[in-house]
């Protein structure tokens, strides 16, 4: 089994490698104090800094966070919108989970076709070397906060194709995965349990934050 990536590589985790855009590069050192000379975006940045520093200094940030964090966390964990994206046979089970027998719409799931409007990427099948950059792009197109579910043996470790020359040995070799759902294929009940596990994880580990930079 070839190790194409390190599981739990810290540089792959969320929020570490933040990209800097052109406007941020321009705004690196605004003229200090002389706020009349600022451009409009620099002025907004200056106001943002001033409000943030004032909130931090007076302890208002902790108070606001303490009140708003549970509310945003509540909304985030009870409104999961996964990407409507299927790779192989686990996608059939994903469809079956939405069907009347196992109605996953009870959990509030809405499958969206555009990655811009999604929270959760479900990797449901073996990721080939050809698909890997596309999947990575899809993951990067999703807005924060976002989570990844590896559904089935193939997405966890390569499954029956673990020794193949063309199949990546698990989705966690190139993107952070939050929930692993074993099974070949995964049953719809297991997928539902995976969503509830993710909900538990969001509530425990990732409090939705406000006024964070």
């Amino acid at each position, binding site marked *: 089994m070839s190790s194409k990536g390190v599981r739990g590589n810290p540089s792959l985790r969320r929020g570490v490698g933040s990209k800097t855009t052109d406007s941020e590069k321009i705004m690196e050192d605004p003229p200090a104090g002389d706020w009349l000379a600022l451009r409009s975006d620099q002025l907004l940045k200056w106001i943002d800094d001033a409000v943030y520093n004032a909130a931090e200094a007076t302890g208002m940030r902790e108070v606001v966070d303490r009140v708003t964090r549970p509310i945003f966390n509540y*909304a985030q964990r009870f409104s999961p919108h996964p990407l409507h994206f299927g790779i192989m046979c686990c996608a059939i089970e994903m469809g079956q989970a939405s069907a009347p027998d196992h109605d996953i719409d009870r959990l509030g799931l809405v499958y969206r076709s555009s990655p*811009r409007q999604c929270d959760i990427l479900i990797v449901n099948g073996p990721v080939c070397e050809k698909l890997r950059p596309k999947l990575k792009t899809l993951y990067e197109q999703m807005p924060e906060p976002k989570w990844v579910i590896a559904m089935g043996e193939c997405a966890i470790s390569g499954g029956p194709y673990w020794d193949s020359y063309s199949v990546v040995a698990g989705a966690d070799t190139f993107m952070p995965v939050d929930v692993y759902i074993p099974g070949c294929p995964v049953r719809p009940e297991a997928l539902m349990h995976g969503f509830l596990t993710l909900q538990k994880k969001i509530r425990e580990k990732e409090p939705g934050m406000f006024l964070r930079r």
Partner: protein
Amino acid sequence: MSLFSFCKWMAEWTAQKMLIPIFEFQEGLFPPFTNPAGSIADWLGTDGGITTLAWLYAVNIAFAVGMTNLILVIHLERKIAARIQDRRGPMLSFRSFRELGEDLAGSAPSWKFKENYAGIGILQNLADGIKAIAKELIVPAKADKFLFTMGPIIFISSSVFLLVLFPLSDRFAASSAPAGLMVIMAAFSIAPIGVLTSGWASNNKYSMIGGMRSAAQLMSYEIPLLLSMAGVFLMAGSYDPVVIVEQQQASSWFFGIPIWNFIPQFIGFIVFMICILAEVERVPFDLPEAEAELVEGWTTEYSGIRYMFFLMAEYIRGFAGAAVATILFLGGWAGPWPIPPEIWFLTKVYLIIIFWIFIRWSVPRIRTDQILELGWKKLLPLSLINLLIVIFMVEIYPYFSEIVSLPEVF
């Protein structure tokens, strides 16, 4: 007591008890900084100030009523869709607030998933909305940033504008424009500009095709829509929704049963219902956001609260479209006595919306060439035939006005 007189009473009360003392205190505190054009406290004492304040109250009440209905419509859509497919739909219950209380209090979390999902699911809209606020707003690197930001603003503002334009009854009205329905249709026509703008500014081929389809759909449907409405305007002699509803109620058929517009103008009613369905872009005509062909249509590149604005605005437009159909053809708020007229109006509106939801989950989408053919070759002649019938009834057949007893004024 109408909505406006209630608001005027409320405005007088708040001005006398709260606002005028506050402004007098503030103006006494900072005498050099008072408004040179005149004191705000003095202006609030005049009739103009009270009326302005009353209009503000009325518009806010109409907005709150519309937003409440928006939540109910989205909930109805998801629940009825689930029932049609033999499912149960969203089931997030009010007992899930227990977890929120635990998190706020900082106590130990409890895990009761069954209790969380054992309700009617109306909180699902709340969760979706708050989540959308907390999501990241992405502007694509090669997008036109100004237009990309302006698109949702044009769309949502023109849609929210619709909420205060139609009256719920002759006493519950936040606006009293004599050209009321023309203003509503003008506000309806602003939104495709927002669609086209956001579709073009996204720099995405799917968004672009969606925006172009929206423009094509607008051109093929606005004309039969307005022509089918012209019959109603000719019958009532006015654009005012109150006058239109009074005319429908005044024209009796036999034994005093009112003959509403959908009976004499049946062709116009059918044309109008098809066209308003295309106007609010619901399913048989949702070409701009065809999910099977274009990814999400013109909303493809929008994330977070901007996408939620589009979703909200679509349902607001659906609600307003159903309200216009009710006013024009189904007798508005007229109905037997013991039930208040506002409830009658909302009942008819919700019946139309439920009918649309049934259509949405029953029929497939039609193609672009079919939509243009339907608009130009079938609905346009039908609406012209309807207009000719109405002209024949109202103008050429003079004694028809005695049968239906049109009001003397017109």
